[in-house]
């Protein structure tokens, strides 16, 4: 095939300029900090609380997505009902709707006078401007990941296997528990990890609904922006390096899971 030199050089130049150079700049800036300075910046009480909030709310949202994502995928693959293809299209809305718009509209819904906020306030539950609001926004953002990861695997399960299980006397629940669930699990974990990774770095949908109170509802990406606005470039960079490390670890995990998934389904990974 021709074009090796042309495509190689242009791709390398593009990736070097657009992807590698900015990340290199990030690490270069980190080197202007001494090690104790770096540690101090990434372990300040405000930073630690922001990690805790970011991590816990992302975990809660990804877990919700795992449960409801599996359910949505199951219903879409297994059942016939009017509006099925509309539901299938709607699942991708969080990918298509700008995150800031999701943040704006969710905030409007969940504030004290909002459509959902009012009845919830009557029950004594406040969502907007609390960690709960962050979980709501992150659940919105992460929904498609689990559905789209699980859907193809559910479709690929051969009916014969289930028939065999039921022929041997397994109940419907046992068939799900021992046959279907283990097959779907790697895909479910992949979707969970993708939703979690996306949630960790999410910013646009959260800034509106979280209220951004330092030490209370301040996620790490917001702390980076705040540091930057106060011209604390070194502090912002140190936090960014922490986030980048977590992102790469999660990326690695997704790759491992996908390799496992490829073994389950017998498909090659791109």
């Amino acid at each position, binding site marked *: *095939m*021709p*074009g090796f030199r042309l495509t*190689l050089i*242009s*791709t390398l130049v*593009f*990736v070097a300029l*657009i*992807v*590698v150079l*900015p*990340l290199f700049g*990030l690490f270069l800036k980190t080197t202007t900090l001494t090690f104790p300075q770096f540690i101090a910046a990434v372990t300040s009480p405000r930073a630690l609380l922001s990690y805790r909030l970011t991590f816990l709310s992302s975990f809660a949202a990804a877990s919700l997505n795992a449960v409801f994502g599996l*359910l*949505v995928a199951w219903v*879409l*693959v*297994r059942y*016939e009902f009017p509006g099925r*293809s509309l*539901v299938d*299209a*709607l699942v991708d*809305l*969080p*990918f*298509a*709707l*700008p*995150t*800031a*718009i999701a943040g*704006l*509209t969710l905030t*409007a*819904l969940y504030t004290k006078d909002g459509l959902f906020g009012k009845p919830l306030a009557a029950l004594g539950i406040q969502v907007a401007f609390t960690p709960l609001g962050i979980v709501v926004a992150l659940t*919105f953002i992460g*929904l498609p990941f689990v559905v789209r990861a699980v859907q193809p695997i559910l479709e690929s399960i051969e009916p014969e296997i*289930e*028939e065999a299980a039921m022929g041997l006397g397994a109940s*419907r629940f046992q068939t799900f528990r021992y046959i279907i669930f283990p097959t779907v699990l790697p895909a479910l974990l992949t979707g969970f990890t993708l939703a979690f*990774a996306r949630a*960790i*770095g*999410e910013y*646009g949908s959260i800034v*509106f609904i979280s209220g951004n109170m330092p030490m209370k509802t301040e996620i790490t*990406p*917001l702390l*980076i922006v705040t540091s*930057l606005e106060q011209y604390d*470039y070194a502090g912002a*960079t140190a936090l*960014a390096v922490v*986030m*980048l490390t977590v*992102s790469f670890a999660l*990326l690695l995990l997704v*790759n491992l899971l996908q390799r496992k998934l490829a073994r389950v389904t017998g498909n090659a990974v791109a």
Partner: protein
Amino acid sequence: MSTTAHARSRLILQESGITRAILIAVVFAFLALFLLVPLGTVFLLAFEKGIGAYLSALSDPGTRSAISLTLLAAGIAVPVNLVFGLLAAWLLAKFNFPGRALLVTLLDVPFSVSPVVAGLSFVLLFGRAGLFGPFLQAHDIAVIFAAPGIVLATIFVTVPFVVREVLPLMQAQGNSEEEAAMTLGASGLRTFFRVTLPKIKWGVLYGVVLANARAMGEFGAVSVVSGHIRGVTTTLPLHAEILYNEYNFVGAFAVASLLSMLSIATLVLKKLIEWRAR
């Protein structure tokens, strides 16, 4: 997806009617609460004070300049990523070379990096205190807090879209038709445009549609490099934020309604492409 036939072929394996009805109802309720109502609320709030207020919010000069900046950013970022995405997909599909796996990972990096971190890295390169800051200042070139920074950040966040869609298609389709064309004397470029491109066109279009939605809607990365100068460096999502913070809710949601219509159009196009590509 051939789920229709699939589902029908195993009616015996289905849950009881009641279980099915409950599960479907839960899915409808969940998606309505989490997706449909928020989407509808955008339009409800945009038209809260009538169509006149809606239209005047959209004809505001700040909104107009945000529209043009958004179109500019997407108008540059999407074609750039289309061209380089196709080049990269050809490279990765047709050749094996040392470092190939690393290159695949690097092309995927923008999806796993927080948009805020991406924006920050551009500030650290091109900002006043950045690596190229002194050089840019000496030549009076503004990148950060100006349109070029917004374009760069938008290119960064949309890098993976086209490659991701096109590469698996190219790999699945193999090389035999290209080899035949070239044996018959077609040049490499001619082979690409006449043989390869028609085979992957739906994948390309799919990638472009998704990249465009992300380019027009990007918030985090663009927000960090923009500086929020009203009417100068604000894209539509940033403009919606400014209006919202000024308690101009009709204005904010009018702008949001434009982006929501974009997302509905994206979903419709996506479905159409999936349907045509089958």
